[in-house]
Every structure is written in structure tokens, then in C-alpha cells.
């Protein structure tokens, strides 16, 4: 019964979150750029335009994988969200290994993005796909360390226990740098800003350069849904998830997710993208050791005062 309620809440969370993400993504960058304020109808109108546009194929593409890539991406975003609790015991897929499930979603996201770029049989998407893998693989290691750091005080890999362990103090206090590292991962798997190595401007849209119409729309929807998912996971692992006074847990989670989402969309616009080789080197030699230190710090803190 609880699972059924949770499934309904998941649908609600997805629709509210997605609508919010579409609005924020459509309006915040334009606002930051100082353009005249666009209307809220724009994303819908754009979707209607894309739906009515012809779907183009390239010479000898891998049509099956091309079609499956956005579907897989979207499915992973939803599965990732389904292991998040909306309240005590309110979780669609109760899993005692929630952070490992989320980790698999991250790993399969890399596969989905690669599939999307590969299938076009065109140079710009291909380059985008390959360089994305180079960055997303080590970025995923960061998130594994950070989430393990969040699992230490909870003595469990499940998200519900991780939230409950934050009743005394939120994980963002325990590992502030961990939150920043996880936000970087969030940018990487929702293909944004400084970590958008798949669809960047220097490749004329990268993996999307040779897709049109409904395929572009599907890819945008999947990206935005993943943005919602990764924001919700961040809010759960670092900001105490559904915990909060007065309001119901679901609303608290939604509010915290919205906060993270705005931070992610904003941050995606204010940091320059390094060449992939340099970014790969930075992740391995600077950010990964930082995540080691973070984990050690959490461990020491738990041993001394835990």
C-alpha cells in the first residue's frame, strides 16, 4: 500500500519537478543574460514545434540504438528517483542498496549518452560521445566516494537510512566539499555547462547535431528529468531529504530539490568548460584525492565523536 502511494507521489514529483525544471531551464539563463523576460509558454510552444518537425535520419545510422538512447536515459532518471524516499517508509522501490542502484543509473547514463552520439554515424556527434565518456567515467568515481561518505554515518546503503541518520546533523555539514563534488556529477550526467562534453557549442550541438524534431524533444525531456532526479538525490543525501518541520516530508523534499535545481542551472552558466584532456586530468589528480580526504575526514569524525 505504502508503495502504491509512493508511486503516485513519484508521478506527482516527476510532473511538478519536470515542469519546474523546464521553466527554470528556459528562463534563468535568459534572465542571467539580461534578455527581455521570456514567457512561461515558450517551453511548451517549443515542444509543439519540435513535435511537428520531421525526424531526420543520417546515412546508415544505428536506428535502434538511436531510438533507445533517449528512452534509456529517461528510464534511468525515473529509476534513480524511485529509490528516493518521500517520507518515512514512503519509497516506490524500497532498496537497502539505494546508493548502489543510483550508481548503476549513473553508469548506464554514460552508456545512453554514448549510444546517442554513436548511432548517428556522423563526426560531430561521435566526437561528443567519446569525449563525454572520458569525463563521465572519472566523475562517476567522485560520486561513489561522496555517497559512501554519506553512507558511513547511516551504517546502511539505503536512502531512507541515510535520511534518518541526518536527523542530528545534515551531511552537508559533515562533508561540504562532498556536496560540491556531487553537484559536479549532477552537471555531468544532466549534460550541463562546464561538464557538458556531449552537446557543447564547439561541436555545433555534439550528439544532437544530427537529430531533429521529436528526437531533440525526447532528448531534452530526458535531460531535464535527469536534472530533477540528480537534484532530488543531492537533496536526499546532503540536505536531509524529507526531514523538516511543519510541512509534510514530500513538500520539504520538493523545496530542497528546487533549490538544488536552481543552483545547478545557475552554476551551469557561470563556469567555463576546460578542454576534455585537462578536465580529465583535473578530476583524477585533484578532485579524486579531495574526495579521499573528505571520506577520511568523515571517518575520523565518526570514530571520535560518532
Amino acid at each position, binding site marked *: 500500500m505504502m508503495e502504491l502511494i509512493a508511486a503516485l507521489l513519484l508521478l506527482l514529483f516527476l510532473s511538478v519537478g519536470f515542469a519546474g525544471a523546464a521553466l527554470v531551464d528556459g528562463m534563468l539563463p535568459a534572465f542571467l543574460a539580461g534578455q527581455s523576460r521570456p514567457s512561461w509558454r515558450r517551453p511548451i510552444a517549443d515542444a509543439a514545434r519540435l513535435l511537428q518537425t520531421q525526424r531526420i535520419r543520417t546515412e546508415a545510422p544505428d536506428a535502434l540504438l538511436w531510438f533507445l538512447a533517449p528512452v534509456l536515459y529517461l528510464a534511468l532518471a525515473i529509476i534513480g528517483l524511485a529509490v528516493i524516499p518521500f517520507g518515512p517508509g514512503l519509497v516506490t522501490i524500497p532498496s537497502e542498496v539505494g546508493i548502489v542502484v543510483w550508481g548503476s543509473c549513473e553508469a548506464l547514463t554514460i552508456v545512453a549518452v554514448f549510444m546517442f552520439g554513436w548511432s548517428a*554515424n556522423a563526426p560531430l556527434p561521435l566526437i561528443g560521445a567519446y569525449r563525454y565518456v572520458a569525463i563521465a*567515467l572519472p566523475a562517476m*568515481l567522485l560520486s561513489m566516494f561522496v555517497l559512501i561518505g554519506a553512507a558511513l554515518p547511516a551504517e546502511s546503503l539505503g536512502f531512507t537510512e541515510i535520511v534518518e541518520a541526518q536527523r542530528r546533523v545534515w551531511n552537508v555539514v559533515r562533508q561540504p566539499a562532498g556536496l560540491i563534488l556531487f553537484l559536479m556529477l549532477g552537471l555531468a550526467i544532466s549534460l550541463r555547462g562546464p561538464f557538458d562534453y556531449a552537446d557543447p557549442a564547439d561541436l555545433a550541438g555534439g550528439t544532437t547535431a544530427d537529430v531533429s524534431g521529436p528526437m531533440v524533444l525526447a532528448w531534452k525531456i530526458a535531460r531535464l528529468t535527469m536534472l530533477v532526479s540528480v537534484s532530488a538525490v543531492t537533496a536526499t543525501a546532503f540536505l536531509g531529504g524529507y526531514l523538516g518541520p511543519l510541512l509534510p516530508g514530500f513538500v520539504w523534499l520538493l523545496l530542497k530539490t528546487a533549490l538544488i535545481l536552481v543552483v545547478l542551472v545557475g552554476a551551469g552558466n557561470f563556469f567555463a568548460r576546460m578542454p576534455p584532456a585537462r578536465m580529465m586530468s583535473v578530476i583524477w589528480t585533484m578532485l579524486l584525492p579531495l574526495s*579521499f580526504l573528505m*571520506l577520511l575526514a568523515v571517518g575520523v569524525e*565518526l570514530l571520535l565523536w560518532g
Partner: protein
Amino acid sequence: MEIVPWVFLIGILSVLCIRGVHGVRHSATAPQQLPFLGGGTPDTHAWQRYHIRYYSMTLLFIAFEMEMMFMYPWAVVFVEEGGMAMMEMGMFLAILSIGIVYAWREGVFRWQ
């Protein structure tokens, strides 16, 4: 479980709707299928023995990842085991750090 046929029905209907909207569209012609190069043309198919410049990084990554899989169960019993687990973690992170330092010295994190 009666939900399943309904889900199928809705799925088929929505697919038909989308197809209906696109019924008027023609499939891509040969000039439409040319990959986008800004107007230019390619000599060959883009699918090729693609030179990934980070291939040695991926090998390091696989070993790294396997090592990390031990850390999940370890995280669960960390508080319970205390100092013992701490030493364990120290050894683990030391091994991983040696791996990173070595690979960095050998230039694995550059584009080959």
C-alpha cells in the same frame, strides 16, 4: 495486475497519436541524410576505428572501480568495526592513491 493491459493499451494509443501527427511527413531523402559538417562533405563513413585518446585511463578506471566495489559493504560496518575499519580504509585509499600517482607520473591522464 489488471493494470498491465491498460498500460499496453495506453502505450499503443499514444504511439498511434504520435504516428498520426507525423503521418504527413516524408522520410529523409538522400541529401537530407548527409551528416552535418557546415555544408562540406565527408570522404567516408564517420564510423571508424576511432582513436580514443584516453584508452589507458579506462584501464586504470576499471581496476579502480573494482577496488571500490569492496568499499560499499565496508561502509555499512564502519561504525561497528571502528578502528579496524579505519585501518582498512587507510590501506585502501593508500593503494588507490599509489595507483593514481603512478598513472599520473606515466602521463595516463593526458590525451595520448
